[in-house]
């Protein structure tokens, strides 16, 4: 029976889609059966980040409206056979997404998968609310930056009020995923520190993903960073976060700005 995870943030551009792809691939690499769903109707991008943009025939809206079967809309990843993508529609209006339809899709997927990861659109409108509605666990993606933290705080409020869990009086499990963390700038005091963000948002930390060129390279070639370069700093951070989602206790590695010998030899900055 799948755990339903929503990857959400409120603010756009903080790394929801990157994180959905990276976490989904990291879990699938461990042999878990994973489906990642793009809820950003009209502005889909998860297909592009996963490298499946040429293979989308049917999407979430087709399934919701009954024009295609779920089995026909699921795209199996070419690299990991336990990883599936359900794309968003690029042409439909976001109102085509209905509460009943989403509920049915999640209900149908639950028995056959270990993880259903819902990539939320930015904002707090219909798509974002439906992405979180049937979730068991929320991953709140936040940048160490004031507007992102403020929006995350707003999203945490919505997770505790508008979701199915909230309505049945259960508590939504919430985790903070701090992304685009730049240890050099944090060290100089130019960026909110990890403690600052945790103090304000008061939810447990799932992981710290360092700002890295590897993220851009991975999306350029259409591969989750955890597959494209599994030993890179962001990939290792995502792998650890995925293991924490699975309930493992993994020591937290705070990205540091001190140059390791290896990095010095290569003449590059850490992370």
């Amino acid at each position: 029976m799948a755990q339903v995870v929503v990857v959400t943030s409120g603010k756009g551009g903080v790394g929801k889609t990157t994180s959905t792809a990276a976490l989904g691939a990291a879990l699938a690499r461990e042999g878990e059966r994973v489906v990642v769903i793009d809820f950003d109707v009209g502005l889909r991008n998860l297909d592009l980040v996963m490298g499946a943009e040429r293979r989308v025939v049917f999407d979430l809206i087709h399934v919701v409206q009954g024009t295609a079967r779920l089995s026909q809309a699921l795209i199996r990843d070419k690299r990991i056979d336990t990883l599936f993508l359900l794309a968003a529609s690029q042409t439909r209006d976001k109102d085509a997404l209905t509460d009943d339809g989403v509920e049915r899709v999640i209900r149908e997927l639950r028995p056959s998968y270990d993880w259903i990861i819902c990539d939320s659109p930015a904002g707090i409108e219909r798509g974002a609310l439906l992405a979180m509605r049937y979730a068991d666990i929320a991953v709140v993606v936040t940048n160490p930056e004031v507007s992102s933290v403020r929006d995350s705080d707003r999203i945490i409020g919505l997770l505790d009020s508008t979701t199915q869990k909230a309505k049945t009086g259960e508590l939504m499990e919430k985790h903070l995923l701090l992304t685009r963390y730049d240890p050099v700038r944090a060290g100089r005091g130019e960026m909110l520190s990890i403690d600052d963000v945790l103090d304000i948002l008061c939810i447990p930390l799932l992981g710290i993903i360092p700002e890295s060129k590897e993220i851009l390279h991975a999306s350029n070639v259409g591969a989750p960073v955890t597959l494209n370069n599994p030993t890179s700093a962001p990939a290792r951070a995502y792998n650890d976060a995925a293991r924490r989602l699975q309930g493992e206790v993994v020591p937290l590695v705070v990205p540091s700005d001190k140059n390791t010998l290896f990095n010095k030899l290569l003449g590059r900055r850490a992370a």
Partner: protein
Amino acid sequence: MRFLNLFGHHQSARTAQHRLQVLLMHERSAGGKADLIPMLREDILAAIGKHVIVDLDKVRVRVERGDAVSLLEIDIEIPTNVKPMHTAPVQQAELLS
């Protein structure tokens, strides 16, 4: 892709540019007929459905969009012990309407 990776990451922007070109070309040209693939599928299934009963769960549609051409693959499982339906021409006309 692997070939490019051998040369490090400098080439990844070029890969990105190429992927976007192919994708956007399709999306822009799709315009009003974005549902071309689903429409083709319906028509093909209707044509086959005139002769044999098709279980929609046994239909797999795949597409691979290329630079110059796209490949549409439709796998339809037809049970081997099923007798073809003998439909009179008149009835076929009704099916289509």
